[in-house]
């Protein structure tokens, strides 16, 4: 029998048994839409963690071994901003204490544009461009017994040269690597000599980090570049874990939905058992019956998965505009140190995995009814119904 005719019968069965079709479709539409949204939310959550973690200070890629002249060559496709930082180990001293820190000479204006570090100020303000000011962590300020407006004396390891800076502000990030042993000042305020240049590169949202890294390594072969995944392996693992959890959720949801579909489809098929018996009596072979049932499930799943995907996309589009504020649950979480706003984002994987899984599980759900019908003798069907 022609496949086109079997497809036609399958379509007619679905259209003319519209109540059953609607119930089955509703199940799949709901599941696909929910999973498209959940997948996009998982991507959005991971985006937020990366954005918060890299946007606070480090950037997506950190580089070292770069000279001042080479800095202009860091502007490659995908790089939104390049921050140059000069690092110098110094000893800070106040009237009562000493503290060894790594002093970072920065361009305050550029830093405030690219990072959210200034938002972590608990007292005072971020240092002004060209000033002789220093920005201390709360822990350093406490140890040195300093307040905003106090003066602190700098001593470098190479010399006994002394320099005085005024405390412009005190910060607290809650991240130990940033709250201990670091201090900031305008690059112009650094004591002369012994400075090491480092760069922080901030990428655009969609920029492929591997490609950017590859380009940078080709352009500056002597420099060293480290992506955030390497200097924040904990975050990388957390994101991987998040995706694994989401994959498990998708499979579990569809396993449950497919059992539902299978049961409903079996009831639907058994309701039409006599008709299947008649078709077998007319010469339908096992393959024809299987093709008819598979066509029904495929048509239904393709339709429902398409509608579900569109519905999921619409939901994602709405929440991507307004965002989801989970700040109340993340105030003490270092991965959400800047903002607790989530913006669901669709990736190809997030968009296509739920409908594909729906198709696979939908077809799996058809196996039971197919086997049930094929194994039954038409005479038994016609006798029993």
């Amino acid at each position, binding site marked *: 029998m022609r496949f086109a*005719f079997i497809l036609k019968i399958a379509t007619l069965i679905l259209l003319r048994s519209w109540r059953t079709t609607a119930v089955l479709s509703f199940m799949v539409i709901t599941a696909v839409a929910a999973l498209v949204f959940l997948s996009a939310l998982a991507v959005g959550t991971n985006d937020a963690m990366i954005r918060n973690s890299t946007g606070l200070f480090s950037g997506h890629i950190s580089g070292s071994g770069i000279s001042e002249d080479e800095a202009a060559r860091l502007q490659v496709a995908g790089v939104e901003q390049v921050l140059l930082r000069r690092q110098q180990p110094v000893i800070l001293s106040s009237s009562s204490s000493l503290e060894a820190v790594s002093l970072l000479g920065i361009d305050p204006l550029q830093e405030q544009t690219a990072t959210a570090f200034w938002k972590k100020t608990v007292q005072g303000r971020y240092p002004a461009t060209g000033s002789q000011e220093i920005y201390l962590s709360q822990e350093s300020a406490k140890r040195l017994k300093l307040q905003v407006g106090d003066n602190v004396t700098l001593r470098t390891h190479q010399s006994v040269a002394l320099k005085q800076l005024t405390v412009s502000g005190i910060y607290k990030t809650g991240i130990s690597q940033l709250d201990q042993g670091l201090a900031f000042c305008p690059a112009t305020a650094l004591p002369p000599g012994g400075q090491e240049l480092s760069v922080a590169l901030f990428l655009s949202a969609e920029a492929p980090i591997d490609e950017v890294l590859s380009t940078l390594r080709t352009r500056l072969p002597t420099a060293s570049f480290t992506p955030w995944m390497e200097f924040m392996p904990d975050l990388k693992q957390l994101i991987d874990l998040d995706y694994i959890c989401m994959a498990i959720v998708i499979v579990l949801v569809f396993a449950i939905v497919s059992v539902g579909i299978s049961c409903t489809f079996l009831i639907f098929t058994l309701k039409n058992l*006599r008709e299947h018996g008649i078709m077998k009596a007319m*010469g339908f072979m096992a393959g024809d019956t299987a093709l008819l049932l598979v066509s029904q499930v495929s048509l239904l799943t393709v339709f429902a998965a398409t509608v579900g995907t569109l519905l999921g996309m619409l939901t994602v589009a709405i929440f991507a505009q307004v965002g989801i504020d989970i700040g109340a649950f993340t105030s003490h979480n270092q991965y959400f140190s800047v903002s607790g706003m989530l913006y669901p984002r669709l990736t190809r994987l997030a968009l296509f995995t739920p409908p594909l899984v729906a198709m696979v599980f939908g077809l799996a759900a058809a196996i039971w009814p197919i086997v049930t019908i094929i194994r039954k003798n038409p005479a038994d069907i016609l*006798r029993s119904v």
Partner: protein
Amino acid sequence: MITISSLSKQFVSGRGHVAALSDISFSVEHGRGVILAGRSGSGKTTLLNCIGTLETPDSGSIICNGTDICGLNARQRALFRRREVSFVFQSGNLLPWLTVAENLQLPLELNAITGADQLYRIEELLDTFGLAGYEKAMPAELSGGEAQRIAFARAIAHTPSILLADEPTASLDSDNGRQLIELMFSLCHTKGMCLLIATHDQELLGMAETVIALKDGKLLPPAPAPIG
């Protein structure tokens, strides 16, 4: 031609082994109509199912057009049903999701009769059965008589060599039932089909050229010819 020899079939049920058919032998020639008469449970349906390859007999043979259909495998049986044999059941054998025309299209598609030939055949069948204009009607919109006529039209659409009808008039009033049986016999002669109708309706027995009576799965001897 159908030749049945020593056909037997048993069922296993809660009552133990039940002999549905015991040592049945007879033959039907093309263009002949036979009525299988007998009470409910006499084995009429089982006999039709065996001839139609819906069931496999335990012993004996059924030779249809030179082939012993008892030795066919599942695929061959399905092909045999598709090409050579058609059923008309008691009632409700139209597929409810298909229109009248689509129901008629089904056996034609199964037998690769497509395109203009298919359309012509459907039109011809509807005219023959007085149901022109019913193409787009759904089975639920038809009366019992109309539905049975469409079922009969569908059964002969691809011109099978054997037509098996199991209580085809059971859901019809006597007039509609008589008309349907007359139509069946008439078309059976015209098309040269072997027609077997199972019924327990005594009124229909007089319409048949041959009546084969069954009781408890056995053939009853033919009634003696009237004297004089």
